[in-house]
């Protein structure tokens, strides 16, 4: 063996082995006691029955303290005991041994000794069981194992965190908004780093850190908003752009202000900047319990998390900005489109409010009308904006925009809201202009319509009434039209509830075409319009406003237009009234002449003016004596209306009288009349029916120039229209017209009727029918008094036909009998009396007798009407007068029930009067009452 070989020999060389051989002789007991490991034997129930010195030394016990007294499990810590009971013990039973069990033994002094334990169960034939256990001090090894375990745990945790971080980065990349981001970050802090709590602060435009997103429980106010210059870890993090980790103690020491808020949250804290490209967007704060302190790797991961989150925040900010811009642009577009469809201001305001709600800059929107007139400038309080809406100069109110939660709007948001309000204001202005133009059109139309309506009635009063009705309630609550007289005013038109003092003298005296009268509060109570035309003020229109209020824009001008139109219409009405009045006076004068009186005939006339009374027509009638034995009757119709027609009629009428006096007969008269008309241009195309009646013979010579034929009815009911002697209207042709005439012999009792076309001409029925109807009516009423006949005919035939109507009736010859039937109506008395008077004229009576008979007739007929029919007008009273030998007999009969009227007891005395005047009076009451009276004719008295 070389020296080199020897030099390699160590303690285990054969030489040494040889030197210690005596030690191998040691006793087994010593080997047990001083073995390099612990030995332990226990009974089946765990009680220690043998233990070696090595283990006693390690644990610091004496043998006496353990053997027979303590169990092996009692030398373990609590976890070890459980482990022993649940694992080691069962293993021994099930497989007879357990190896390499790591336990922690508790020394006598309470310190721990990590140990590795092997155990084996020894069984003897008798079933006795002992457990032998070897114990190795594993302090170092366990420390190493612990380190390995910790490293592995850290690696696993780190692996888990990296995985979570990766997942989070992916989620962050997909997170579109800051809110999503906040959620992900807070979750990551808890999941990956076992943070007990985490909060996220994001920086506002101001630079302040403001808490964002969800937080656990109540966040102290001091943590909600952290100014950048605050003595706060979050602010420091923003300034340094570096992570800050600290224990609760350090936090309390360095940041006492925040200590209160942080204290309860954990044992240590980390504040992570969320930054990208040198900009810190926010801070993630995490609170940790004591169990898992952060490692350097954790901090590195947190930094990474912060950078990733920072980039995500930057991206989200960009995205949110972009989205907000798009939303704003869309909102502006939409409100413009929406408002373009609307015309009503209120609806537009509603839309302006509605469309803004829920846009990113406005969580609550309202419209404040009360602010109208106060603010015209947009303002931006901390929590939103106040935006005035104006249309033209009119301030409608303000859009009040609020953010929820309250936040200050940035410049872009303010710009958007201002633009939005401007869009709304523009639309409102457009609507206002359109409304204004529509309003002005409406006003023009109103004035035009009012003018037309006022022109419809021709007279001043009618027009005044239309003016009042046309302006109230259309323009005001009440209206009155006052005409100005020489000394006083006259109210001619009212509409609505016109008060007593509608127009005071003072107001009347104060000038101005349109004058608004205001109450002390400035509300207009009434407007006075002076109605002028052609330099003349015809009246005033007073419009009353209830309640008083300001006049709408532009009303004074509008009312001035109303005053102009109304003034002109009233003035025209006044002129028209004047002209018509003149025409009436003229016509009345022309028609007022006395019919000739002769016992051999009666002439009655009737004129029914045109129904609207607006126009004087050209119809006329006339009757006059030619010599002593001939009566001329005329009915004519001059073309046209009004005063010109009336004067032409007057000329033609006079011409006829003048020409008739020559006695050439009807045809020659018409020929000459043509010349007259042709020469004087008055009455061209007029129609005339002209007849001359010889009273002695009953010969009637007649001619009709374009006029309807006279109607002839005899006493027996026969009738004919006199179709002879017809020719064209006056001066109808340039040359002279050949005029003809015809004649007919009238028997006594005949009636002749001349009439104008207004009586029979209708658009809705043929002329022949109307004439036939006329004939039937006249025949049926041939016994009615002539006087009452004509108005009845007009009523029944012309009714409400607007044309004027002229009628002339002739009753020829003394009738043998005066037989009449009249309605039981006192109004019939006068015509009956006239008629009777005419008949009596043919009798040989003195005027005294004649008056007596008239009186008797009146009394008895009155009695019949009043007693027989109680004056109800529905019965008929028959009157029959005739000559019987040398006496005159009058029979008055009614078919009513005779009653004594209470109303007028004095009336009954009439019968006494009748009895005194008559020779004989008989009263027979049988199916009515018949009074028969007679009195002798006294030739002597006749004249």
């Amino acid at each position, binding site marked *: 063996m070389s020296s080199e070989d020897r030099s390699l020999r160590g303690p285990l060389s054969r030489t040494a082995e040889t030197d210690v051989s005596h030690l191998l002789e040691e006793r087994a007991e010593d080997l047990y006691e001083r073995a390099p490991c612990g030995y332990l034997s226990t009974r089946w129930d765990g009680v220690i029955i043998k233990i070696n010195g090595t283990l006693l030394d390690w644990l610091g016990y004496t043998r006496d303290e353990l053997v027979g007294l303590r169990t092996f499990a009692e030398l373990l810590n609590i976890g070890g005991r459980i482990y022993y009971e649940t694992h080691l*013990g069962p293993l021994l039973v099930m497989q007879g041994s357990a190896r390499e069990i790591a336990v922690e033994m508790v020394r006598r002094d309470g310190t721990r000794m990590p140990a590795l334990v092997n155990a084996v169960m020894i069984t003897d034939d008798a079933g006795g069981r002992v457990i032998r256990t070897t114990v190795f001090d594993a302090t170092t090894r366990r420390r190493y194992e612990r380190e390995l375990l910790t490293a592995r745990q850290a690696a696993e945790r780190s692996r888990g965190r990296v995985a979570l971080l990766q997942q989070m980065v992916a989620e962050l990349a997909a997170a579109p908004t800051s809110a999503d981001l906040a959620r992900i970050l807070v979750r990551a802090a808890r999941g990956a780093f076992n943070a007990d709590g985490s909060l996220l602060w994001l920086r506002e435009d101001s630079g302040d850190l403001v808490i964002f997103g969800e937080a656990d429980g109540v966040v102290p106010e001091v943590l909600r908003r952290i100014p950048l210059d605050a003595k706060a870890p979050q602010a420091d993090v923003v300034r340094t752009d570096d992570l800050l980790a600290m224990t609760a103690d350090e936090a309390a020491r360095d940041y006492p202000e925040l200590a209160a808020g942080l204290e309860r949250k954990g044992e240590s804290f980390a504040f992570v900047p969320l930054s990208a490209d040198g900009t810190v967007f926010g801070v993630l704060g995490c609170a940790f319990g004591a169990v898992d302190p952060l490692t350097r790797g954790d901090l590195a991961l947190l930094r990474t998390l912060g950078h990733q989150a920072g980039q995500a925040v930057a991206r989200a900010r960009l995205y949110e900005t972009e989205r907000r811009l798009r939303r704003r642009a869309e909102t502006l577009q939409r409100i413009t489109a929406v408002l373009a469809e609307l015309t009503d201001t209120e609806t537009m305001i509603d839309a302006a409010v509605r469309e803004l709600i829920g846009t990113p800059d406005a969580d609550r929107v309202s419209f404040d009308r009360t602010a109208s007139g106060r603010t015209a400038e947009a303002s931006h309080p901390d929590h939103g904006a106040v935006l005035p809406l104006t249309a033209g100069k009119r301030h409608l109110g303000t859009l009040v925009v609020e953010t929820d939660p309250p936040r200050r709007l940035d410049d872009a948001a303010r710009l958007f809201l201002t633009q939005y309000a401007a869009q709304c204001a523009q639309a409102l202005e457009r609507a206002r202009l359109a409304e204004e133009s529509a309003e002005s059109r409406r006003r023009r139309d109103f004035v035009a319509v009012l003018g037309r309506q006022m022109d419809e009635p021709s007279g001043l009063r009618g027009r005044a009434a239309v003016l009042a009705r046309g302006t109230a309630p259309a323009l005001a609550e009440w209206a009155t039209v006052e005409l100005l007289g020489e000394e006083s005013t006259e109210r001619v038109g009212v509409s609505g509830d016109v008060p007593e003092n509608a127009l005071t003298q003072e107001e009347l005296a104060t000038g101005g075409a349109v004058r608004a009268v205001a109450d002390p509060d400035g509300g207009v109570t009434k407007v006075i319009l002076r109605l002028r035309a052609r330099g003349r003020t015809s009246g005033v229109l007073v419009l009353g406003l209830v309640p008083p209020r300001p006049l709408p824009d532009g009303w004074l001008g509008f009312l001035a237009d109303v005053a102009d139109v109304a003034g002109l219409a009233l003035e025209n009405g006044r002129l028209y009234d004047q002209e018509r009045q003149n025409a009436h006076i003229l016509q009345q004068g022309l028609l007022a002449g006395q019919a000739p009186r002769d016992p051999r005939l009666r002439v009655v006339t009737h004129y029914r003016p045109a129904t609207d009374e607006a126009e004087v027509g050209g119809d006329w009638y006339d009757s006059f004596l030619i010599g002593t034995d001939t009566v001329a009757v005329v009915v004519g119709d001059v073309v046209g209306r009004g005063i010109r027609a009336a004067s032409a009629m007057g000329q033609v009428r006079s011409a006829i009288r003048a020409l008739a006096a020559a006695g050439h007969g009807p045809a020659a008269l018409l020929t000459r009349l043509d010349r007259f008309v042709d020469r004087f241009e008055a009455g061209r195309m007029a129609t005339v029916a002209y007849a001359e009646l010889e009273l002695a013979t009953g010969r009637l010579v007649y001619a009709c120039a374009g006029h309807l034929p006279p109607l002839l009815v005899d006493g027996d009911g026969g009738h004919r229209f006199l179709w002879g002697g017809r020719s064209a209207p006056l001066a109808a042709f340039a040359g002279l017209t050949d005029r003809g005439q015809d004649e007919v012999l009238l028997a006594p009792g005949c009636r002749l009727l001349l009439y104008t076309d207004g009586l029979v001409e209708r658009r809705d029925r043929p002329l022949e029918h109307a004439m036939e109807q006329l004939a039937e009516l006249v025949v049926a009423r041939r016994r009615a008094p002539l006087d009452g006949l004509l108005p009845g005919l007009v009523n029944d035939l012309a009714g409400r036909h607007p044309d004027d109507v002229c009628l002339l009736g002739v009753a020829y010859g003394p009738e043998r009998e005066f037989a009449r039937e009249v309605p039981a109506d006192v109004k019939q008395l006068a015509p009956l009396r006239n008629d009777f008077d005419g008949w009596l004229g043919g009798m040989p009576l003195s005027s005294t007798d004649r008056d007596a008979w008239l009186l008797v007739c009146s009394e008895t007929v009155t009695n019949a009407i009043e007693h027989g029919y109680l004056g109800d007008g529905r019965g008929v009273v028959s009157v029959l007068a005739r000559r019987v030998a040398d006496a005159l007999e009058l029979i008055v009969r009614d078919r009513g029930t005779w009653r004594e009227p209470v109303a007028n007891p004095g009336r009954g005395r009439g019968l006494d009067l009748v009895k005194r005047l008559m020779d004989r009076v008989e009263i027979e009451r049988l199916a009515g009452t018949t009074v028969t009276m007679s009195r002798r004719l006294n030739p002597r008295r006749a004249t």
Partner: protein
Amino acid sequence: MNVLKRNNVTVSGRPDGQPMVFAHGFGCDQNMWRFVHPAFADDHRIVLYDHVGYGGSDVTAFSVQRYASLDDYATDLLEIVEALDLRDVVFVGHSVAAMIGVLAAQRAPERFARLVLIGPSPRYLNDPEAGYVGGFERAGIDELLDSLESNYLGWSAVMAPVIMGNPDRPELSEELTNSFCRTDPEVARQFAKITFLSDNRADLSKVQTRSLVLQCSSDVIAPVSVGEFVHAHLPDSELVILQATGHCPNLSAPGETVAAMKAFLGKP
């Protein structure tokens, strides 16, 4: 998911006998019953199973979310009972499995005829406010969790899938020690947390099934006072204090355990 495979269910004994389902507690696997169940095989249909993550169960079925509470383990038990369509079941649960049986019987009382609860504890932690002594403070439980992390009993991340998937190939487990209590440490840790931090005191009174509480005379894990508490709160229960000590009379004193069970089951 095959429930029977998932929980490594083994059925033996008399096929038409009243079913007895044995559930092991925290720690090992169905081998815990090896000295007990043969005593009932003549009269009963014996059903043994492993909790997921233990013994021959399918560890891939485990997740922290799926097994977040004892109720989730009770669900497994009920699924096994359903899968085998067991009725009139005698449930035998050791340690924490006793509470699993309590929860299952409460949810499906119609399936269970008797409960045998060995070393049960509804709450391991002391509750001074309620005057309840469970036997442990939180620190002790933390020490246990430490122990679990130090002792990968027979566990190897490489071998685990092979072993777990092949319970019928014992040669694979020969290389590994302590194979009866092999567990994925994550499973063990989770099961330990659930076991020792649950509070099922309120569930006891809801059980209608007739129950036997088998209590060892000296049990570090479930003291006698806890057994008495369980008995007091289980409406239809009886308590037997065994001579045996420790927490596993089924292993340490199978004879006495079987005798007590038979006496209970023999009662009308």
